[in-house]
């Protein structure tokens, strides 16, 4: 249960030239560890998560997700890896409007192409309880507050027992207090579930709940800005 990025390089065309976003970047996160990545807007934090979560293959370098070399995976194979080993939490909770909180989680089981089983229901129930949403399993996104939606997003990301949890600015749509709650929750579940967690945030105070804080600058992760504990 770990995540390893080794000398990962990725650039995007920028006019006539090519802009390097990740420049031989290294990152290793152990199971049960939460790493916070900070950096200015546009520095490539979301891109880093996209590479770690096999949404974008790197131009060079290695990506190992839960022990599986993901660097060369494309299309269906990458989707399968994401389904089984990666959990994403997005900036806006990005829940589906027509699904209840419970169904958001069951969908994660269903996209694997099998029937939803009793065990899946039990896990969904347990996870929603864990993130403090017991009794609200039947609510749809519009019946939940922003903080509650983000908690559903966290529970959904954990549904498939992923090796890696990738979280992109989870507090940007929340007020300070709700944001701190969500960050605290993330730190707890990462430890409990033994998943390798990466959370992107540009709020240093929020970042302090992580085991390690790194900054993305000029395509590389600089040594810890400060140690959390």
């Amino acid at each position, binding site marked *: 249960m770990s995540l390893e990025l080794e000398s990962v390089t990725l650039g995007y065309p920028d006019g006539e030239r090519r802009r390097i976003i990740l420049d031989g970047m290294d990152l290793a996160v152990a199971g049960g560890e939460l790493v916070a990545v900070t950096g200015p*807007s546009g520095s490539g934090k*979301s891109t880093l*998560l*996209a590479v770690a*979560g096999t*949404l*974008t293959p790197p131009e060079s370098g290695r990506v190992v997700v839960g022990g599986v070399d993901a660097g060369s995976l494309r*299309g*269906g194979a990458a*989707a*399968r*890896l*994401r*389904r*089984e080993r*990666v959990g*994403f939490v*997005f*900036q*806006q909770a*990005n829940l*589906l*409007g*027509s*699904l209840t909180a419970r*169904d958001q989680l*069951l*969908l*994660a089981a*269903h*996209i*694997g*192409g099998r029937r*939803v089983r009793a065990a899946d229901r039990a896990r969904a129930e347990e996870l929603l309880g864990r993130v403090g949403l017991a009794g609200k399993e039947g609510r*749809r996104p519009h019946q939940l507050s922003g903080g509650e939606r983000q908690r559903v997003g966290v529970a*959904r990301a954990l549904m*498939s027992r992923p090796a890696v949890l990738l979280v*992109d600015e989870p507090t940007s749509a929340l007020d300070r207090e709700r944001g701190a709650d969500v960050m605290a929750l993330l730190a707890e579940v990462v430890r409990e579930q033994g998943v390798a967690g990466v959370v992107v945030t540009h709020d240093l105070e929020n970042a302090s709940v992580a085991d390690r804080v790194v900054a993305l600058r000029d395509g590389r992760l600089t040594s810890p800005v400060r140690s959390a504990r």
Partner: protein
Amino acid sequence: MFIALRDLRFARGRFALLGTVVALLTLMVVMLSGLTAGLGAAGVSALQRLPADHLAFQRPTGQSPTFTGSSLPAGAAAKAGAVPGVESARPLGTGAAKLAWAAGGERHGSRSESVSVFGAGPGSDLAPRPTADGRIQINRTFADDTGLRVGQRVALGGRTVTVDAIEDTGSFAHLPVVFTSLTTWQQVTRAQQPTVLALRLASPAAAARVDAAAGTRTLTLAKSYGAVDGYSAEQTSLNLMRGLLLIVSALVVGAYFTVWTVQRAHDLAVVRAMGASRGYLLRDALAQAVVVLVVGGAAGTAVAFGAGSLAARAAPYQVSAGTVLLPFALMTVVGLVGSMVTVRRVASVDPLTALGAAR
């Protein structure tokens, strides 16, 4: 169908709207199908039931032969009958006349209706029963509508004849068919020669030999429907309307699902990022289209079936599997084709767009 069913329930107002549109379009297509078949049968059902596979017309001066313009050359039947490959060649007279009779009951006086008159030789099997001079076989539906009975004396084109039998003679040029002998037919319609030869050919190749020997123009039975006045024009315009409705259906369904897919593109990206395959999303999206098309189409078909069954009592309208279930199936297929325009859109959703609201 995990997402599809939940979307259907959640956005039921919108989908009900589309379902209603599909139902109305299906209703129109099914009704038009019944009408097309009904009018077609009124035009040619008497020809359909002839025991023949080809009809030989007088060689036309214009492009194509017509029943009204055809009068066989003298001796055509004998010449055609002698051609190798011709199993039988029987002359048939077609035309129209007024049938008049004394109305019974308290309302005295006389009634009259237009009918098609078919004349067949006494030995031929073209009429339901052997024909005889001065005797007619009338259409069963016509008999039901008019109350005419076997044995009743009536005037056909001014000539007194007796109703000999009530049979399924069919309908020709939108008039019920009355069968009689060739001689009586000639007297009633004042025609000199029979209209066509009803042929049974061992092989279609014999048709050209018949035409060479007898100076005729031979058509297959099905092609000869076009020689009935107005039949082709009527069927073509009805089928054109039906085709247009089907195209409109495909466009409406396609437009709806295009808008729907654009609106939920971000949701689709999120589900792809969660690890769903393209196939998963495509199956889900198409299943949704199928549900709307089948439910809406079934509702429209049910209403059309009810309305059609009523219409069939009073109008040339046909209710059958071919005019009810076939158009329903066609509408569903056409709707699915319409919804296919979203396939590329669904398949090309980039899961990367789920990350970062900025882009």
